[in-house]
């Protein structure tokens, strides 16, 4: 790979090649898993992870009922009858999640459920997950989602175009989607790192997305394996740091897919803390795209509070 040149109406600019050493980045990523997070630190991380969760359902079989039930879970992740257990230990109540993430057809339903809760509503859009659709129709989809009440749009980039080397096309598309998001909606750009394969390409795609106006960059759709991994997230976090150094803009990060346990979530938070610092430890700048993660976090919180593990059925599935 070498430097690439992109143009906007303001003129041309270059994205320099920034090589990533595969062995080195994987070693560094693994080092974060060696941190031992205990007691008060662990508890705070768990609460934070709930606030950072984009509770997600992206199935062909999604129904109004399923989405309603997911929204209910997002609002109160745990049944009220267990909250006194936390109070007894002077722990705060379980917060609501950061956002609910659904398909465009479900936005209206979810918007109704989440009204006034402070929970954000994210919709995947742009012909998720493949993105293989005419741009004008993808933009129309984005506008519809925003009109229906989504305040976060999770778009996919055209991996086909990217792998062909048509970087300008990909760049222009992201800019167009950003514009379609308007003033109200945040844009998360899904790189689908599992299809880009090399860390060098992930770095380039991250940078392009940020230049094009992404508010967040996101690893995966969850439909392609591997989805989020620690090393790929690390590449993106380092890109975010460098972009911040150059522009002063703080871009958010969302690993999605494959994060199922509280232990994993804490490893990600350790990484964010040590690469980007405390400023990024907020749902405004970091999210987890996950569904089963939430219940494992709840189990761990109640374990910390009561000293014993609750059996799975205590926590509703959604």
């Amino acid at each position, binding site marked *: 790979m070498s430097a690439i040149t992109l143009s906007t109406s303001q003129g041309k600019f270059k994205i320099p090649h920034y090589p990533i050493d595969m062995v*080195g980045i994987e070693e560094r990523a693994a080092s974060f898993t060696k941190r031992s997070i205990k007691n008060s630190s662990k508890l705070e991380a768990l609460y934070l992870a709930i606030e950072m969760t984009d509770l997600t359902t992206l199935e062909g079989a999604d129904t109004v009922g399923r989405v309603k039930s997911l929204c209910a879970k997002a609002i109160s992740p745990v049944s009220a009858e267990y909250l006194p257990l936390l109070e007894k230990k002077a722990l705060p109540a379980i917060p609501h999640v950061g956002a609910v993430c659904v398909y465009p057809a479900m936005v209206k339903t979810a918007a109704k459920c989440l009204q006034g809760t402070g929970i954000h509503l994210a919709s995947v859009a742009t012909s998720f997950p493949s993105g293989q659709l005419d741009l004008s129709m993808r933009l129309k989809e984005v506008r519809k989602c925003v009109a229906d009440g989504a305040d976060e749009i999770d778009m996919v980039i055209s991996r086909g175009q990217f792998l062909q080397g048509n970087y300008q096309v990909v760049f222009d598309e992201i800019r167009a989607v950003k514009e379609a998001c308007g003033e109200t909606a945040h844009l998360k750009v899904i790189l689908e790192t599992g299809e880009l394969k090399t860390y060098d390409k992930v770095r380039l795609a991250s940078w392009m997305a940020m230049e094009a106006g992404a508010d967040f960059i996101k690893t995966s759709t969850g439909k392609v394996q591997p989805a989020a991994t620690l090393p790929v997230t690390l590449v993106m976090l380092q890109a975010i740091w460098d972009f911040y150094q150059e522009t002063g803009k703080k871009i958010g990060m969302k690993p999605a897919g494959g994060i199922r346990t509280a232990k994993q979530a804490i490893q990600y938070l350790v990484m964010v803390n040590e690469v980007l610092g405390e400023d990024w430890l907020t749902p405004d700048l970091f999210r987890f795209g996950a569904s089963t993660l939430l219940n494992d976090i709840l189990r761990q919180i109640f374990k910390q509070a009561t000293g014993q593990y609750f059996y799975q059925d205590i926590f509703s599935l959604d």
Partner: protein
Amino acid sequence: MSKKMEARSLARKGKALSPPIKSSSVKKTKAKTSVPTKKTRDQKRTRAFTQYAPAPESSKVVTLKEKYDHYINGEFVAPSSKTYMDSINPATGKVLAKVAVGNQKDVDLAVAAARAAYNNVWSKMPASERSKYLFRIARILQERAREFAVLESMDGGKPIKESRDVDIPLAAQHFFYYAGWADKLEFAFPGKKLRPLGVCGQIIPWNFPLLMAAWKLAPALATGNTVVLKPAEQTSLTALLLCEVLEEAGLPPGVVNIVTGAGATGDALVKHPDVNKIAFTGSTDIGKLIARNVANSTKKLTLELGGKSANIVFEDAALDQAVEGVINGIYFNQGHVCCAGSRLLVEECIHDVFIKKLKKRMETLRVGDPLDKNTDVGAINSKEQWLKIKELIEIGKKEGGDFYEVSTDAPTQGYFQKPCLFTGVSNSHTIARTEIFGPVLTVLTFRTPDEAILKANDTPYGLAAGIWSEKGSKIHKVASSLRAGVIWANTYNKFDAASPFGGMKESGHGREGGLQGLFPYLEIE
């Protein structure tokens, strides 16, 4: 925490999403205003999470004796002088245990035991039997790994993370590796007649106490020699714990003898007429002294000495990974590493951006209790070394280097030195030439590959070097011109039992590890 959480959730509810960046202004805002535009909605505060609550490894797995004797002929033997020295925990400055001080009589006894074991048992034993003992030692080491790791960290001040993940596993690996060679030596040297040397005197340093013992013992035993080992006076405890492992493995008495003590004990071993070989790892000054003492004898000698190794970062390197390599190169084990990448040579055109990244990364290093699992930089091994590092830092400042030390906290008791570096240094400065053996990095710059090679080689030492570039041809060209025994490309401080290690010039001679590590312990005809 509850108050904080409340504040957070209020802030979130009342917040508006940050104003979208107008796509047309993307390029314009890319001016050099690299200060954060605004604080996050929440007031800036330190989260408990980022402090990482203490996570100490329990020291209960270790049973310390009040005092430790020599291990001679399979028994613990009190020193004939009846004197003991203190072994100090450098993280607290307190005495951990008392360790015997060896004199000429003790060394005589140990050498005689080794000679008898060599003549009567070890040299006569089939090689396949020898290898069984080594395998056993390796396995028992693995089983008791936690105990060894904790003791190593208590005695030497190194972070438990390193003793647990590096020192002890590698020590076991060395025994496994040479166990495999013991009965295959004729394949290592086809067509040659091989003979062990006899009794080997081995003197090891305080920076990797157990690992250095393993590096010395495993090849010596595999090739059929017997040993008298003298650990460093600061860190004798894991070598003495290893005696329990040798017993458990059923190693015949006298094959390995351990005599503790300081310089005088080592001197007695070096000068002993019935020792056939001396293997020494330590400082260059002592190495030279040993070479002089051995000169007028038939003893064989290998020396693993100091270094001032260059870590060369080219502009086309993967920068974030190079930063990791530099960190690992100099702050691993508090910089108490003979091959530490203590001279950073960075290409001038990336100097500023690289140093900025490096400093930011340094700030995340956690200095503290060696037994805490989150500690990255532990205690300086001894008061003496601690004072030496402080003195060299002062000299560096006086000579005009720009000093930078991380702002993180370090314990106030015990011997701690925060990670630091000097920029604006030239090759004639003391801190660019003298081995500091601490967490102090010296940064130099270069303009071309030729200049990098010139500067890297401009040192009396020649132990190791690192090259960071994504361009393979450049790596090969530079590597072939460096006068160093070990050269790493796009990594640093990577050790493996199968890979030979050793120096050139004043960094010593002879190799340890790998097939080459067998040479110094064999008579090859």
